[in-house]
């Protein structure tokens, strides 16, 4: 059992899967270049030394191109792990992901499988509109893609290994502020979800959520960074006598609905906290699901705490207003429980 952050946990997960299965390989921009960072956020740092440039494959700056390579490799029997430097660049490969990877299995009547992992860092980190979006929801809307979003080191490694072994295209979203607060690529304001990660082989099953804190008064659902915002809020809420339950779905598609519904049936109040833009967002979907399936258990309307409908601002002061803060979560819950 070693203690590590998410970036290291992902690296260990990739290393173990590549050792276990020779068809597993990595590709992406600057992931193995000598003297480089090991991708934009050090996840693949050092792997080229063990596996060589054929299995830690640097690609040209062509998102659509390397995504196509990954799909083709997957279809022909490999298990690629692709790395996009910033999730925002996923839009460049939208056709490859949404039209090709997601639909191939359906269109071929199940005869073709597309096992591939696309890792993408997201979240507002002083990088402005084109490098700091939270865009998971664009992909949760496409049938055929699985979407995971680990918020702890343990889950990062376990979900990565599960994603590699899955026969469907899996998008893995990682929050830039959660990679770790140390090292050369540590982001300003990063929190360190360092945790114990087993050395032995394990996976975190795709589609299974986690209750991060138990409580009886209100259910708060968050993902990635907002799980931590919600957890920080619960400490202050507890001082007010409000015991909040925090659920981290870990997997966005397929969603562990039952865990959320069961919690709402217990607490009768529901708040979803998301860094996504509010309108037509992820929170809207979760709130609608709760309203539809747990309506008669609700003692108050479902509430969303979201980013406003603007691009992530570059100015630090504005960014602080953009990302849901602990205060906003506390305020929303207090209003709901009052």
């Amino acid at each position: 059992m070693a203690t590590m952050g998410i970036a290291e946990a992902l690296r260990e997960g990739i290393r173990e899967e590549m050792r276990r299965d020779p068809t597993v390989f990595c590709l992406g921009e600057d992931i193995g270049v000598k003297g480089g960072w090991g991708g934009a956020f050090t996840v693949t740092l050092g792997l080229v030394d063990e596996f060589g440039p054929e299995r830690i494959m640097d690609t040209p700056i062509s998102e659509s191109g390397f995504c196509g390579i990954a799909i083709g490799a997957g279809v022909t029997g490999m298990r690629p792990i692709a790395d996009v430097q910033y999730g925002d660049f996923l839009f460049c490969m939208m056709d490859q992901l949404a039209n090709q990877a997601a639909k191939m299995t359906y269109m071929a009547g199940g005869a073709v499988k597309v096992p591939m992992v696309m890792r993408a860092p997201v979240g507002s980190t002083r990088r402005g509109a084109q490098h700091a979006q939270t865009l998971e929801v664009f992909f949760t809307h496409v049938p055929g893609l699985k979407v995971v979003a680990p918020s702890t080191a343990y889950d990062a490694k376990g979900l990565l290994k599960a994603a590699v072994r899955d026969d469907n295209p899996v998008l893995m979203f990682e929050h830039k502020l959660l990679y770790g607060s140390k090292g050369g690529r540590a982001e300003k304001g990063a929190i360190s979800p360092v945790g114990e990660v087993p050395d032995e082989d394990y996976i975190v099953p795709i589609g299974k959520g986690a209750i991060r804190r138990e409580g009886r008064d209100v259910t708060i659902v968050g993902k990635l960074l907002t799980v931590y915002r919600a957890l920080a809020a619960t400490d202050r809420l507890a001082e007010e006598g409000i015991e909040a339950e925090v659920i981290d779905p870990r997997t966005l598609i397929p969603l562990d609905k039952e865990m959320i519904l069961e919690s709402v049936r217990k607490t009768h109040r529901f708040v979803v906290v998301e860094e996504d833009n509010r309108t037509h967002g992820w929170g809207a979907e979760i709130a609608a699901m709760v309203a539809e399936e747990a309506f008669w258990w609700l003692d108050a309307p479902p509430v969303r705490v979201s980013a406003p409908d603007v691009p992530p601002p570059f100015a630090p002061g504005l960014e602080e207003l953009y990302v849901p803060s602990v205060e906003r979560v506390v305020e929303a819950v207090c209003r709901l429980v009052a």
Partner: protein
Amino acid sequence: MATPVVVPPLGTNVDTGALVTWHKREGDSVTTGEPLFAVETDKAILDVEAPASGILRGVSASEGDEVPALSEIAWLCAEGETPTVQSSQQPVRQVHPVHPVHQPNSQAPVHRFASPWARTLARERELEWTILQGSGPMGAVLARDVEAARPSPRSPVTPLARRIAHETDADISRMTGTGHLGRITRDDVTSPNDPREPVETLALTGIRGRIAERMFRGAHETAPVTLTTEVDATSFVEARKCIVADGLRVTYNDMLLQVVSRALREHPRMNATYEGDRAVVRRETDIALAVDTDRGLLAPVVRGVQALALPEIAAATASIIERARNGQITPDELHGSTFTITNLGMFGIDAFTPIINVPECAILGVGRIKPTPWVVGDCIGIRQAMWLSLTFDHRLVDGGPAARFLHAVAQAIEGDR
């Protein structure tokens, strides 16, 4: 702060109800959930519980008044407090004896809110959430308001007992726990049939409560005497056969209504009601007919029977019986009768001692018609015999006049006149 006492919503398209009774008086101390007053709609009598604890003050509606739904008719105040707001609404309108004029409720409809979970809890606990004071936004009733009004009746359940109950479909909500701290244990779930436990407990409220109260008064506030006689109903049966053969749908009850009405006209002292210290003798024979309905015994009234021909009686009876059974009968149709007929013949009963439908003078119980050996002249023949049981209030009339009235009814049935 004073809590208003509000008439609950009375149903779709029902603007007002009649205030039947105050269970508490001005100045009485009341606790939350106690029955406070009863209001009658066209369908039922609804007991309304106190929305809060306090002293009943500022009562602005009296028994018999017509009160609009959602109007404030009193306040529940703290000790020494007077109602902070005097009700500006004038909800109160005398119904009796002024001829009723329908006035639609002029107030805009008041929207009330309740959270889904509050509604769910209220439904589970058989509580009408609309009578609660909401503590949520816009006065919405929340789960905590339901909790306060009717705390969870559920005893704690051991996990094993819960699983067994789930597997065997046992209803733990009505069980009483015998375990530690009243916990429902495996033993309670596996042997819930304690012979000492009642199968069910029904509150005597609404129509049942009304029946209970009226029957008690009929039995204990009158001086009842029951006379019985057996009559030869052969020609009565034959007469009905002829009428039915002519295509008219006429029941024995319809024919009895006519017979009784005529006898009452000849013996008007029997067509009387007890009011205060007087026997008020009526000209019109407004005869109530006891009807067994799903909701209990109702006695809708056929008015002015003396002026009706048999087919008209039959039509009127069919109409009120049907409406009594499907709940459409109006309060007016259940009040103001001068005599009552109750027929248990269809249940195979011969004779019984009916209870007077107060404030009437008398009630006629009718038994079954059955072939019986009968002395006809010097021979014994088979005749269609029927028992009549007349209970009368000896305060209003004596045995002689009552017996003469019953004899007149019997003779009419036997076809001697």
